[in-house]
């Protein structure tokens, strides 16, 4: 039914199967949308946040997806500005993941604010001293850049590409994509850094506060660096999951290896800088405010030193060691383990910089404040995941996301007329699995 929309020379499930597979994901999406409207209509009393937990699950999700979506700007930076040409085979997917992450971040922010209709005040009454102001401006601008980077891919849909205007538009946009990649990298350096500043400048919160050189440039660069380091790991993780689900290889190993190697070295350098930051904070900054390291990790039911270990060692040192080693990268299981640990590591980092900051008592006579998110918070946090799965599935089905797919998954489909492709592709593949294909488009 939709075969005319599917890229040439690739094999996709019949439409009924595709819809059936997406069914549960759509159900989750609807669950999230219901929760979203509950929050908008009834207000944030639908959450389990309180006056001690002004920032909670949503802000963590925001920071996490923005860090994980960093694969888009950094892969673009490597591809267009550094000249790592092989990454052109994965840049489409990196952009798609980034687009999903950033649109999700904006959606979550729109749910998170108490007066959504006043959201534009952040631009209109902007306080230039606030980290959130910079984040809002750069994040919105960068989402615009990601949209511009995603549009050419959409226009390359087989049917849209037939329209001369769209064809030329996408061609010309590709021609100047380096400009947008540079703009994206520039904007990302700002908003990723400012997200570090969001917690780091809170001098009333000794758990988050960093001073002197450890706030600027250290914390700012730690956040930018970690997004650049772990973002590509997230891209690789999603690529591997997509390959598993679709049961086909979509990107050649040398491309994945290159990105994994870069990600590994980035994680290694980041984690060294993070350890230095943690040491100075624990040994100098926190004691100057009357706190020892253990004060932040004791006398409560959840936060212990295990979370510091999980973030730095399990989610930082271990994936870095695996990814910088040639053997580690080339072992498929170790590679997947490393990128998963990396994703956990950066997510835990964002978690502690949001939720643990809120949980730690500051006044000596105050108590730890722990919270469990409400189902509405959980549903609206999972909502972007469902949305992301759907957008990846749709893009995978209808857009030429994978330049190497035809080469890696040759099918003996009738080469010419469109009408011929309209035959059942499954049958064609079964009939002649070893057929030759034209080289992939760059």
């Amino acid at each position, binding site marked *: 039914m939709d075969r005319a929309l599917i890229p040439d020379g690739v094999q996709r499930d019949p439409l009924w199967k595709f819809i059936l597979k997406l069914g549960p994901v759509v159900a989750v999406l609807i669950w999230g949308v219901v929760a979203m409207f509950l929050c908008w209509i009834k207000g944030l009393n639908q959450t389990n946040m309180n006056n001690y937990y002004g920032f909670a699950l949503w802000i963590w999700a925001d920071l996490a997806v923005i860090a994980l979506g960093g694969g888009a700007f950094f892969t673009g930076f490597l591809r267009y500005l550094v000249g790592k040409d092989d990454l052109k085979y994965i840049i489409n997917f990196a952009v798609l993941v980034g687009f999903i992450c950033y649109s999700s971040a904006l959606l979550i922010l729109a749910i998170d604010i108490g007066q959504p209709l*006043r959201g534009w005040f952040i631009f209109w009454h902007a306080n230039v001293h606030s980290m959130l102001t910079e984040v809002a401006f750069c994040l919105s601008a960068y989402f615009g850049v990601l949209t511009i980077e995603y549009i050419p891919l959409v226009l390359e849909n087989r049917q849209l590409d037939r329209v001369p205007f769209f064809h030329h538009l996408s061609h010309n946009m590709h021609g100047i994509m380096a400009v947008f990649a540079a703009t994206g990298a520039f904007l990302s350096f700002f908003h990723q850094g400012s997200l570090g500043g*969001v917690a780091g400048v*809170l001098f009333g919160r000794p758990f988050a506060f960093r001073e002197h050189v450890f706030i600027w440039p250290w914390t700012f660069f730690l956040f930018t660096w970690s997004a650049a380091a772990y973002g590509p790991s997230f891209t690789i993780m999603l690529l591997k999951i997509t390959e598993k689900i679709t049961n086909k290889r979509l990107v050649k190993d040398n491309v994945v290896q290159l990105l994994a190697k870069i990600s590994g070295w980035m994680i290694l350098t980041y984690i060294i800088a993070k350890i230095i930051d943690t040491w100075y904070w624990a040994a100098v900054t926190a004691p100057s405010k009357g706190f020892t390291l253990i004060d932040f990790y004791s006398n409560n039911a959840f936060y212990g030193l295990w979370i510091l270990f999980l973030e730095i060692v399990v989610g930082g040192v271990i994936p870095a060691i695996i990814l910088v080693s040639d053997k580690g990268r080339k072992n498929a299981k170790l590679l997947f383990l490393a990128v998963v640990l990396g994703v956990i590591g950066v997510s835990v980092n964002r978690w502690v910089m949001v939720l643990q900051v809120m949980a730690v008592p500051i006044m000596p006579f105050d108590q730890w404040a722990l919270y469990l998110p409400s189902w509405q918070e959980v549903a609206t946090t999972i909502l972007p995941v469902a949305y992301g799965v759907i957008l990846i599935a749709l893009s995978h089905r209808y857009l030429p996301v994978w330049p190497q797919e035809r080469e890696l998954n040759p099918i003996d489909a009738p080469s010419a007329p469109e009408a011929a492709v309209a035959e059942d592709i499954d049958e064609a593949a079964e009939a002649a699995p070893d057929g030759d294909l034209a080289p992939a488009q760059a």
Partner: protein
Amino acid sequence: MKGATTHRYGMVIDLDKCTGCGACMIACMAENNVPFRDDESDKLLSLTWMRIFRLNNGKPFPEADVCYLPRPCMHCEGDHGHSPCVSVCPATATDYSRETGIVSQIYTRCFGCRYCMGACPYKARLFNWWDPVWPDGMEKFLNPDVSPRVRGVVEKCSFCYNRYQLAKNKAFLEGRRELEENEYQTSCTQACPAGAIVFGDLNNPHHQVHQLVDPDMAHGGRPRNPNAFRILERLGTNPKVYYLSSREWVRRSGDNTIEGEGKLKSH
């Protein structure tokens, strides 16, 4: 944020006099149209511009001792002229007045991001999780000088700023520019039956608040009175609420200290 503050309105609370009766909290709620719900059992959702903490010295009878500590907004100036909350607000919905030293909250501009709540170490900023619902007939008794807040915005103690405006209007009509000490007093100050709360201009040596704490303005307003202290002095928030106590354990409870510094477990 630069430049000297003309007036520096502040508060001194004598913890040796406070009985924890809660009259200050009630007066505050009535004065400022602070809404409440049928079920206020979850105090982390309550709107209490003035909240009373109960401290104890952690010792068994007969040495056990208790102290009640009222906590309004501290109206921090910060050591470098930056309140923890003012500089972080992305929409300039909270401001530090160089005329009064009061940290304001512009309810109509706040869009409820709650970054200021995260920045405040005193947990003095509160969020309107619900729209205010007044018991039948009570809306007729709301204070017409204070605007009620809608759901989704942050609010906090304003040092009864509406009273400052009324006093300024009166002074203007009488051809004066300056206020007398008793012309501008907060509702909690007036409601305290023990006279534990004193309010005035910390910059004015004739005001009682100045005389009680003798603030050292060259060092971020630190009190020279050995019985006076501020909460979380070490963070550099430079608050304008001072506490008095003759009990050492109470004074030490105001700040965090590490092992060698003789930390007291107060809860």
